[in-house]
């Protein structure tokens, strides 16, 4: 209705049509960020007013809250991702939230640089997440998804200790290994170099390298004194 009512809003947004907000997936979000998009907005039906019978907007909400946590983990401002729920009649609401979102993103500045990430780290981090998409989808639907009734309950769950524990256990370590292997694709590196590139502590890096070596993902090159992909 924003269009039909000719409400004016920012020109800084490009829309992609999906039949249900639940169709949006992790790959779409991180592909957009990898492409250098500064923000991603998802518009879904009002909660509990599903156009289908599937309540896909709750799936989308789960996805957004999880993705925000991943963004935080890799040093990106989670405010760059937003979901809002509205009916097709609420053109004025759409115009308002889109303006507000673009304003927020503009204030946050260009992706990565504003967060103090150098372009190479940003690229590696996003690549690491992107490679992990199939795995995250699997653990998301099996272990991480909240089943609640209201927005507040969802937000409380994702801000809670239980989720934080699961996130560390299921995603954080995998992501670190994914980051390391993404980095090593370029060239063999020492623990110190890896630690510097990824902004993680050397002891964590050692732990992940040892685990990865055991799984046969990386190997230690004695001559070069560096780790390389196996």
């Amino acid at each position: 209705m924003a269009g039909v009512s000719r409400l004016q809003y920012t020109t800084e947004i490009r829309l992609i049509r999906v039949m249900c907000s639940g169709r949006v997936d992790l790959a779409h979000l991180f592909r957009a960020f990898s492409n250098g998009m500064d923000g991603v907005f998802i518009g879904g039906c009002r909660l509990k007013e599903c156009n289908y019978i599937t309540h896909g907007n709750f799936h989308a909400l789960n996805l957004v809250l999880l993705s925000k946590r991943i963004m935080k983990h890799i040093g990106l401002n989670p405010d760059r991702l937003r979901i809002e729920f509205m009916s097709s009649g609420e053109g004025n609401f759409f115009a308002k939230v889109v303006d507000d979102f673009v304003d927020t993103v503009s204030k946050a500045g260009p992706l990565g640089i504003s967060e103090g990430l150098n372009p190479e780290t940003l690229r590696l981090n996003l690549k690491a997440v992107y490679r992990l998409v199939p795995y995250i989808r699997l653990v998301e639907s099996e272990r991480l998804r909240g089943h609640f009734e209201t927005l507040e309950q969802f937000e409380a769950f994702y801000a809670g200790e239980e989720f934080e524990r699961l996130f560390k256990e299921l995603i954080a370590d995998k992501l670190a290994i994914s980051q390391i292997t993404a980095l090593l694709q370029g060239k063999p590196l020492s623990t110190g170099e890896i630690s510097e590139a990824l902004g993680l502590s050397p002891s964590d890096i050692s732990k992940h390298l040892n685990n990865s070596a055991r799984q046969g993902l990386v190997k230690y090159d004695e001559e070069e004194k560096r780790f390389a992909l196996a």
Partner: protein
Amino acid sequence: MEGKTGDFRVRLRKKPRYVREDKCTGCNTCTEYCPVQYPDEFNQDISNNKAIHIYYSQAIPLITYIDENCLYLKEEKCRICEAVCKNEAIDFNQTEEIMEINVGAVILAPGYEEFDPKIRADFGAGRYDNVITSMDYERLTDSTGPYEGQILRPSDLKPPQKVAWIQCVGSRQVNPPGANSYCSSVCCTYTQKQVILTKEHDPETECTVFHNDIRSFGKDFERFFQRAEELPDVRFIRSYVSVTGKDPETENVIIKYTTPEEGVKEEEFDLVVLSVGLNPPPDVEGLAKKFGLELNDHGFCKTNPVNPMETSRPGFYVSGAFQGPLDIPETVVTASGAGSQCGELLSYRKGDLSVERVYPPEMDVSLEEPRIGVFVCHCGANIGRVVNVPSAVDYALTLPNVVYAQEQLFSCATNCAEEITEMIKEQDLNRVIVAACSPRTLEMLFRDTLREAGLNQYYYEMANIREHCSWVHPRQKDEATQKAKDIIRMAVARAHHLEPLMEIDLPVDKKALVVGGGIAGMTCALSIAEHGHHVYLVEKETELGGTARQVYETLEGLDVQTFLNDLIKKIYRHPLIHVYTGAEITGTAGYIGNFTTKIQSARGNTEVKHGATVIATGADVYTPTEYLYDEDNRVMTQLELEEKIATEDKMIAGAKTVVMIQCVGCRNEDRNYCSRICCNESVKNALNLKEKNPEMDVYILYRDMRTYGYNEDYYREAAGKGVVFIRYEPEQEPQLEPAEEEGRTVIKVTLPDYVLQKNIELDADIIALAAAVIPSAGTREVENLFKVGLNPDGFFKEAHVKLRPVEFAAEGVYLCGIAHYPKMISETISQAYGAAGRVLALLSNDIITASGAICEVDKNKCVTCGACIDACAYGAIEFEETDEAGLKAAVNPVLCKGDGLCNAVCPTGAIQLKHFTDEELLSQIDAAVPEEEAAEKKETAV
């Protein structure tokens, strides 16, 4: 209007709209330039409109018309609209047309008019600026309303901080004359909706509702009321009120009311909303005379008590509020029901006028290199004056695989659509993009254009540069042009990946299964059979009839048993209805158009095939555990009392005092709903008792009397005949105790009287409990068998409360009767016809077509994790044994609705929603990047 049923000749006068329907595209440029401003009728005259305008933003057709305020029509001046219309749609030479049509039946749907409080200056209406009607308020809250959704009060156009609603304005009133004696049925709930909307709008606004009874008798209405009542700063005050004046400075309105705690009080409000009732439509007498119809005492259409859609004249049916106050779901039900009954009348010549459309054979271009054509629409000036269309065309031609691009003035105009068809052939296009408006408006049309050219319709892609661009960025022409180019680039990227998709045609088994042989099931079965379809009617008891077997009379005086026996006879005599009594359904499988159901009955085991299923399994009566029901035989339910009255039981003859208690077993924590029929049932029994013995003392102890609609008259009649109505609160419900009083054994009833502020005692011979209507015992079984949903109270849940009230979300399965929610017999019959109408809409097709944009599994990628199966609420995905790879997920294309949740959860991307595949969406995401940035990022991309 002449002729007879089945063959009417109707002369219609079509007023000129001075706009050619075949040329106007609804672009609204004329409206902008029109110099005449006058109050907008659609927005209750609050804001202004132009002499040429679209009536409202969802109007059909969505095109303009010129009304009598036009300067040219009045004074032969102006004609600006004619000059600015680029499509030459304005035609001042149009004159009134007289058309004659030949029809077999007529449906009357003239609706209602809201009560006008200004006539009697009710509550200062018309006298004080800040007293408005609920319809005015409704428009104010709407985003297409007078102030684009801002709620502003008339006197100073400021948002009101304190709003009061006054209920029952023009309803439930006999004195002074000018109002209506009936209850308008819808106002309590619409007011609650307005309160909720107001609070969503501005949580600080204080809302006060002055009401009589709260009549939340509809499905889920009780919860809705609680939701409104529990909001902060919302007060519901049960009090009569008067508007005593206004503050001359602030223009605030002063209301006088009474509360038990504080007595008489005066309070100021920024805005007062009168919740006006429903009147018959304007010039209803003229309408009735023209069609030779009778009206009822209230001026609405007189209808058959056992068929609320049937008028006094054969071949004439009513749909909607012309039969009396109805809410939206009931209106939709009667619309479908009236349709079904017209069909019964005319089924012998069904399909005579339909013409099948023939398309040229489809070319297979799937192996060819994409050749994309882009058509950029000016939409008159709508797009063209903001977006630089020629530069967008030039830009499109630079994009990969775009072999042709052109601009068009109106792509949707017939000649332009033909041009697209020609260009597809001339340029060998195999993908087509029209950059114009929203796919919601015209995607269907352009898909059709492709089919005409022999291309698969899914090779069409729409780039929305109007609603998403020119209309929302009118002042930023450069940015808008850039955005339009981006949108086209994204559409082109997507077009590369489009695939030809097949829509699946499925045959429809033109038979129906009706589960439940009560009034609902039988009425529905009969209507379907009258259209010439076989019906299997299944009843678990040994006899047909259902709950109605215990009802002797309706409030209007209909003899239910005679009606019921007549209906049962019609069922048994109908050659197309196959009755199974003492029956149980042991299994059912299949999907819309093709179900198979196993029935075990007195006739043995059988399996039937059918295209549609109707659930009409009825409901049960609550067995009270309260009020000594299981201890004392003087305590009975209203149904039991009705039986005793009808059979002239001696207990009735000897009774001096009967006390009726309402809301037994519902409107409480366990059952948070109103059983809808009980107030009416109690009034009916009270009237019958008074008729038999006018000396008898009858008391009705109630919480809110919910005698909605015309039944209000019976409530008034009962009060007039001396039935005493005493209100009680659930926290202080009546106490019962067997006692001896002056040698008479009675049940002593004690309860507080809120008017007299003291306890009262009643000595009753009979206690009648208005026991709740509860979901039938077999509900869970039906739920599992037919995979249909239940609402929180355990009644069946329709697909959409307002718009699809007789359909389940599971396609091909329908519902009617009290299995849906408690309702009166006449309402049950309405709904039964309504369900029949929906069933017939399905069964009248030889085939049904399933969309091509559904999900599909790549078996090689499937890892059998089941995530997709969990995600699909339609149950469209199941594991299937494959020859090579074992168990793999497979989609039933008929059940898949194309939401794509499964696609988002699949870890390997094995399941893809066609037309919205990962490839298609990712290509759009990649193409969204501005080109110069894309070039920079090329080597850094992942």
